C-alpha cells in the first residue's frame, strides 16, 4: 500500500496567534526588548555620571520629559510581567525535595514573591 502523508504547513510568522497560551508566551518573550532598552538607559546614565554633574543634569532633564515618563511606564509594565512569569515557573525549573516529598510549588513561588518584595523595598529605601 502506498503512503502519501499530508503535511500541514505552519506559518513561521503568525503561529503564535493560534492559541492564547502562545500569545502569553510571546508577551513574556517581548519583555526582553524593554529590559534591553532600559539597561541601555542605565548605561547612558552611567556615562553621563562619569562626565560630571552638569552632564548628569542634562541626562535628568532629558529623562523628565513626557517621553521619559512613557518609556519608564512601559518598562515598568514589562518588567513586572517578566518578574511574575519568571517566579511563577520556579518550582518547575528548581524543584526542592525534602525527605520524600517535594516542597509544594506555592511555597517556592511565595518565597520568591516575598524576597522580591523585600529586595524592592531595600532598593526603593536606598534610592528614594
Amino acid at each position, binding site marked *: 500500500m502506498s503512503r502519501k502523508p*499530508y503535511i500541514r504547513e505552519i506559518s513561521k510568522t503568525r503561529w503564535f496567534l493560534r492559541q492564547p497560551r502562545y500569545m502569553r508566551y510571546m508577551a513574556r518573550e517581548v519583555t526582553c526588548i524593554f529590559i534591553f532598552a532600559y539597561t541601555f538607559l542605565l548605561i547612558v546614565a552611567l556615562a553621563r555620571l562619569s562626565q560630571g554633574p552638569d552632564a548628569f543634569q542634562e541626562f535628568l532633564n532629558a529623562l523628565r520629559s513626557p517621553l521619559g515618563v512613557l518609556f519608564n511606564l512601559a518598562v515598568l509594565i514589562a518588567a513586572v510581567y517578566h518578574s511574575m512569569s519568571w517566579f511563577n515557573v520556579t518550582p518547575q525549573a528548581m524543584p526542592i525535595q525534602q525527605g520524600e516529598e517535594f516542597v509544594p510549588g506555592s511555597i517556592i513561588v511565595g518565597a520568591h514573591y516575598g524576597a522580591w518584595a523585600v529586595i524592592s523595598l531595600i532598593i526603593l529605601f536606598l534610592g528614594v
Partner: protein
Amino acid sequence: MSEERQIQLEVLRYNPETDSQPRFQTYTVPCVNEWVVLDALNYVKENLDPTLSYRWSCHMAVCGSCGYMINGEPKLGCKAFIHEYGDHIRVEPLAHFPIERDLVTVVEDFIAKLASVKPYLIPKEDKPISAGEFKQTPAELMKFKQYTLCINCMLCYAACPQYGLVPEFLGPAAISMAHRYNQDSRDGGRDQRQEVVASDEGVWECSFVGACSEVCPKHVDPAGALQQVKVASTIDWYKEHLMPWVKK
C-alpha cells in the same frame, strides 16, 4: 439521568489514495452527556461511516493512542467529555504530525526520537545476579516517579510550537524520559543520553513555552523536566570548560 443531545461532530478526513488535501466532514451524532469524544467517534464508525480511521485502544487514558486536536486543543479522545463542549465539536489529527489518513498521524519521528535517548536503565556497573537487587529508597523513587507516568500520547508534541517550527527538535516527551532515567539512582547512562539531549536539536531548541505541561493528561510536567535538564547541562558545560580539573 443521562440526557441525550445531538452534536455536530466535524471531523477532518484525508484519504491518501484519492485526496490531494484534507477536508472536513460533519456528522450528526446523538450523544449522552457521559460520553467522551472517542465514544462519538466510535458511534460514527459503527453507525454512520465505517470508512473513518482513527487510533484508539484502552478508552481509559492509559494507552495514549487517542490523541486528537479537539476544538484546536491537544486532548485524549477518551478524556474529553462531551458535556464540556457545546453542540459543535471539531476533531483533527494531532498538530505538527503528518497525516496518514483521517485522524491517524505518522508517528515514526517521535518513536525514533524516543529511542534515541535510550529510555531504559543503563546500570553504572555490571552486577551479577548473586550480588542481589538494586535497592532504592522511597525518596530516590520520588525523584523520577512523576516522569514514569508518561504514556507517549504525543499531546505535548502537538502543543509544542517549537517542535512544529523546527521538526528536528527532540521534543518534550523524549527529553522528559531521558530525565526520568538520569534521575534514577540505579542508572549510570546520563553521559550517553547527554550526547543527544545536550545537542542544539536537543533541549536547547526548547524556549519554555510551557504548553507541553499544560496539555499533558498525566501531569508529567515535561516543561519542568526540560528546564532541569538545561540547568544540569549548563552546569556540565561550565565545569567542563572553566574547571577542567574537576572530575565529572
